[in-house]
């Protein structure tokens, strides 16, 4: 913006920005600072005495084999949900892009689950996988697979993955379709004239051109799978059976509100902040590149 389009006023800009700064300070910066502070303290369960213990909470958290299990579990969940939701969406978007007439109808049919809350998506699949009355759960039991996510940790994990990925397909679909529609027809046609078939065109032209979209979605999906899956898990398996579906966010919540281990929970929060920070930085790296072009 050049200088001539700037208004001159001493106090007005502060007044305009004040509400956002106030909310940011009170509900974002201050709690985050408190989390960092709290993570350096040990408080007795009655909140009567606190002592400064340095990084001991972090050491406790990182040396706890259960925490490391949770890290691995969350990473597996994030990778599987991201891969599943993105691959499915890419296939559907590629099909919808080339379908010509009727693509609008398919688009409408495919994008509405974006509006379904993760918690409700979890509840829907919880019924489907129910071993006694769910269509899939009962079907599997009839086929001789012993299916009961309430007892089998792996099966509970599958339930969470399917529900979380199902909900995310529509988001990825919207972005992939938008990305596909920006690819110039002429490029595709030139390749076709040169004799490249549909498969070859997809892998050598379409997919590389979708790179930026794919990278953006990768980060968004990872953040979703790390953080928003809490609702899917809490509304259905509650982290069970035997912690088989306990994720990092679930553990922060559980240790903080149920176990009342404030220092440990705060240390975990700070570790999560670092994780989001890293993912956000990645995203910005991408946005910068996009802006530079």
């Amino acid at each position, binding site marked *: *913006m050049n200088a001539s*389009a*700037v*208004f001159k*006023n001493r106090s007005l*800009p502060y007044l*305009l*920005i004040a*509400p*956002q*700064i106030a*909310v*940011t300070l*009170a*509900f*974002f*910066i201050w*709690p*985050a600072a*408190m*989390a960092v502070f*709290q993570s350096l303290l040990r408080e007795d369960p009655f909140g009567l005495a606190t002592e400064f213990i340095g990084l001991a909470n972090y050491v406790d958290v990182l040396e706890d084999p259960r925490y490391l299990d949770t890290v691995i579990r969350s990473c597996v969940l994030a990778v599987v949900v991201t891969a599943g939701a993105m691959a*499915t969406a890419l296939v*559907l978007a590629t*099909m919808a892009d080339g379908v010509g007439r009727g693509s609008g109808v398919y688009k*409408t049919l*495919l*994008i*509405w689950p*974006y*509006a*379904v*809350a993760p*918690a*409700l*998506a979890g*509840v*829907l699949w919880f*019924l489907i996988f129910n071993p006694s*009355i*769910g*269509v899939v759960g*009962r079907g599997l039991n009839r086929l001789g697979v012993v299916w009961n996510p309430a007892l089998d940790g792996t099966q509970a994990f599958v339930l969470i993955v399917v529900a979380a990925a*199902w909900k995310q397909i529509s988001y990825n679909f919207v*972005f992939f379709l*938008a990305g596909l529609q920006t690819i110039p027809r002429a490029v595709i*046609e030139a390749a*076709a004239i040169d004799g490249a078939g549909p498969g070859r065109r997809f892998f050598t032209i379409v997919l590389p051109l979708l790179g930026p979209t794919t990278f953006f979605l990768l980060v968004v999906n990872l*953040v979703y799978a790390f*953080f928003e899956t*809490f*609702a899917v898990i*809490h509304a259905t398996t509650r982290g069970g059976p035997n912690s088989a579906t306990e994720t990092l*966010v679930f553990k*922060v*919540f559980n240790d903080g*509100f149920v176990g009342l281990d404030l220092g440990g929970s705060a240390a975990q*929060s700070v570790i999560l*902040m670092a994780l*989001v920070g890293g993912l956000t930085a990645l995203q910005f790296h991408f946005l910068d590149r996009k802006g530079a072009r």
Partner: protein
Amino acid sequence: MVETRPFLALLRHLVLLAGAGVVLLPVWLAFVAASMSGGDMMNGELGLVPGSQFYANARTVLVDGLRSGGVPPVGLMMLNSLWMALAISIGKIAISLLSAFAIVYFRFPLRKLMFWMIFMTLMLPVEVRIVPTFKVVADFGLLDSTAGLALPLIASATATFLFRQFFLSVPPELAEAARIDGAGPMRFFVDILLPLSRTNIAAMFVILFIYGWNQYLWPLVATTGESHYTVVMGIQRMVAVPDAEPIWNIVMATALLGMLPPVLVVLAMQRLFVKGLVGGDK
């Protein structure tokens, strides 16, 4: 020209139909469950054919909730969700428009610092600061209130960024002309900038309404009284019943009602929704 292959066209339609089917199936099965009577559910046969009790079940949960499970009427919870979603979307749009206006159209000391402060909120989703945020909101006496539900979610930088990007794309000659004609900054903001931002605001509203309605973790900790539950969060009280099967027809009627408003918003405003999401000028 790209060759036309009838087989490929058929395959496309088949894949898309299968995809649409997989996407729709869970909701159809939920509808089937929600249309069964309590007795039908006992028989354990839940197929693809709906029963006749949907209206009765929907009415029951809307008006009564599930008293045995400590779940208030779904109608009340949906109203709570509505207030929360509106407070979040309107509040976020209002403060973001003002701060983006300040950042783009003024030069003032601390501008950069404030910009980065707003920016940092991107790294602080409510999930990572849940315990201390709870403490802050409790200290303000805001538990069990719409303000308490909305405020900690309101200040994320996403909306501020979108409006900043848009303001930067508005030709600077407009502000210049307004100034030469003697219009003050607020006059320019209200009479020129806001009308130009109309579609962007609407698109943002669609996205934020859905975001607000679908909140789960924050309402879970910020509400203690059952009459303040939101529907997306309240449903877990019906599902997680110790040592018993959930009453599935009631649960599913609640789930369907709970997803209806945001799904309707997406379907009714599909174009705005896609614009708000992808953020392009397409």
